[in-house]
């Protein structure tokens, strides 16, 4: 047995006190630390944590669809996926086999991919490949490469391709309108992207959606006045005509007479908005609206209108054009040949420059100029198309006889195809100048009276002669219908005067002549084939396009049908 000590060394009381105080102080320290973390530094630390794991992701909004007048889609936004990577994470965590597979799926070389990522190591976001179709994107994701993720985006598709290219324009890779209506109505079409807050792990995968900050607001749809069927026919015929005549380009506008709706608007050369590499070198210009040219003889009906207004001319008033050449100041006005004595109708039918000049010089100065101005030439048409040209008409009527004479047959001013179509629509619509439009917003656009209904009717009767035997545009005649129109073959202005063998051939016309439904203007730029006169060059396009339009819209034939060899059956309704 051990010897029990007699006395136990009782530690001094203060030691117990110290231990007690120390032990009690420990939780206090812990609490103080907790207070400091939770209350004092809490916000800062929370912020730091969120910065590492909370991300705001944007939710792409759907761009509005563009429809034609019958509701057929012309531009659709379809969802696609873009593959992106966090370069640092991918480089550090992906094994070589995964990199190889990823590069293979993306159609890249593994070394290039690695170099691209290496160059952007300090960034957190790098697009590997944009706009992949969702099925392919799933294949990429099934590789489970660290740091690689998808982002939903929308890509614009144009089912009609080249046919509607110029009118619609196109969008860039971020789905913003760049040209045409896509640009003009960008604010209307584009949606407001939404945002959500997500929690991401170290490898960039979304673990949890924390909250929706903003729901995406999809863009609104646009309904056009374009008729896809007519647009296609117009495209096909214009393209064929440009090829047949070996021309530089061309454009066509087809208007509904009563409403001013633009039913078709096509140009050559064209581009396919679905293939971005096509979009080069001015191919995307909507020539019908942006390009101006000197119209030439197609302006003669308006010169005749000025004559009718004076009250001194009727369609049957004789006009002497003998000997087919006329000197005005230093300038010589020529006809194709000597037509002898014509009537006012004959001046239009034969397209006599001398006749038109003689009428204009006989009228009070400025009358022709005034008519041109009233037809809306030299002013934008209000169609709200980006890059619309205003054309040119001199600010003041010229006093010089040369200019008065040349203005009478369409030189010394420049117009766009759309302006010309609109001016002809006034003749077609009994004198009401319509406001052309591309949007079928239901509301009728205002029309403005620019000539009396009687003068419009007289002009149509005179212009109907142009497509009959002996006129300049027999090629524009449509079986079963009467066609009123006028040709124009103008020389192109070049530096220092007019080019010798470079022409712009135009045909402007309407059908049926007795109660017009459609107005079309066709321009062929520099036909270099055998023909350059507007009749054989542009006339057949009018016949094909407007002929089909009349058939598709069930317009009653107004020509004596027996002449065309049709059978007529009568019956009670």
């Amino acid at each position, binding site marked *: 047995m051990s010897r029990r000590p007699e006395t136990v060394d009782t530690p001094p009381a203060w030691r117990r006190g110290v231990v007690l105080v120390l032990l009690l102080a420990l939780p206090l320290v812990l609490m103080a630390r907790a207070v400091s973390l939770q209350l004092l530094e809490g916000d800062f630390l929370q912020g730091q944590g969120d910065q590492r794991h909370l991300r705001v992701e944007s939710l792409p909004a759907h761009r509005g669809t563009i429809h034609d007048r019958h509701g057929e889609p012309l531009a659709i936004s379809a969802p696609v996926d873009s593959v992106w990577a966090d370069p640092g994470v991918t480089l550090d965590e992906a094994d070589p086999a995964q990199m190889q597979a990823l590069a293979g799926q993306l159609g890249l070389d593994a070394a290039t991919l690695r170099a691209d990522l290496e160059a952007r190591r300090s960034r957190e976001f790098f697009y590997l490949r944009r706009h992949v179709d969702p099925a392919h994107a799933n294949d990429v994701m099934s590789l489970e490469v660290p740091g690689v993720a998808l982002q939903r985006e929308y890509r614009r598709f144009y089912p009609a391709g080249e046919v509607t290219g110029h009118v619609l324009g196109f969008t860039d890779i971020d789905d913003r309108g760049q040209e045409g209506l896509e640009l003009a109505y960008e604010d209307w079409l584009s949606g407001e992207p939404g945002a959500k807050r997500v929690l991401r792990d170290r490898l960039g995968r979304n673990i949890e959606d924390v909250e929706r900050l903003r729901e995406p607001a999809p863009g609104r749809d646009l309904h056009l006045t374009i008729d896809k*069927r007519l647009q296609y026919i117009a495209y096909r015929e214009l393209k064929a005509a440009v090829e047949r005549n070996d021309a530089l380009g061309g454009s066509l506008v087809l208007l509904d007479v009563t409403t001013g709706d633009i039913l078709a608007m096509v140009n050559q050369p064209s581009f396919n908005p679905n293939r971005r590499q096509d979009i080069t070198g001015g191919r995307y210009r909507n020539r019908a609206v942006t390009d101006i040219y000197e119209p030439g003889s197609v302006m003669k009906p308006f010169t005749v209108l000025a004559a009718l207004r004076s009250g001194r001319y009727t369609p049957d008033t004789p006009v002497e054009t003998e000997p087919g050449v006329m000197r005005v100041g230093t300038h010589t006005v020529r006809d194709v040949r000597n037509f002898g004595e014509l009537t006012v109708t004959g001046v239009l039918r034969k397209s006599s420059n001398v006749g038109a000049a003689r009428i204009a010089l006989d009228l009070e100065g400025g009358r022709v100029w005034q008519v041109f101005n009233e037809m809306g030439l030299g002013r934008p048409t209000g169609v709200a198309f980006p890059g619309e040209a205003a054309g040119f008409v001199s600010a003041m009527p010229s006093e010089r006889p040369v200019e008065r004479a040349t203005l009478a047959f369409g030189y010394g001013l420049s117009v766009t195809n759309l302006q010309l179509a609109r001016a002809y629509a006034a003749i077609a619509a009994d004198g009401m100048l319509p406001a052309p439009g591309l949007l079928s917003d239901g509301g009728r656009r205002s029309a403005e009276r620019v000539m009396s209904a009687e003068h419009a009717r007289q002009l149509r009767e005179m212009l109907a002669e142009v497509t009959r035997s002996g006129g300049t545009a027999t090629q524009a005649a449509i079986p079963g219908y009467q066609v009123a129109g006028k040709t124009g073959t103008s020389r192109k202005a070049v530096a220092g005067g007019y080019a010798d063998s470079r022409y712009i051939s135009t045909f402007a016309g309407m059908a049926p002549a007795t109660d017009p439904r459609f107005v079309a203007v066709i321009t062929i730029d520099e036909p270099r084939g055998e023909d350059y006169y507007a009749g054989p060059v542009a006339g057949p396009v009018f016949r094909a396009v407007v002929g089909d339009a009349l058939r598709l819209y069930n317009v009653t034939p107004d020509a004596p049908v027996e002449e065309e060899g049709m059978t007529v059956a009568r*019956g009670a309704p």
Partner: protein
Amino acid sequence: MSRPGLLVGLLALAVMGSAIAVVEVKHQSRSLFLTLESLRDSRDELNTAWSRLRLEQGALAMHSRVERIARDSIGLRQPAPERTTMLRLDVGEARP
């Protein structure tokens, strides 16, 4: 038991109850959120399919394609005027 003691006890019970309710509601909200997300996913998938189908329809209904088939495969053509019969309905004239 004194009245304040009873009150404290009741409040403690209420706190416990509310805590359990919070857990329960949180769980419900999570599962609802999951359902919502999966519905959103299927909506996106349907949207994708729909726009793909619309594009496919657009490609198949391309006028150039329809015209080619009509002309070449079926041999359709526009009738010449000689083969056209105009039907005129004499409105107001021949009413029985």
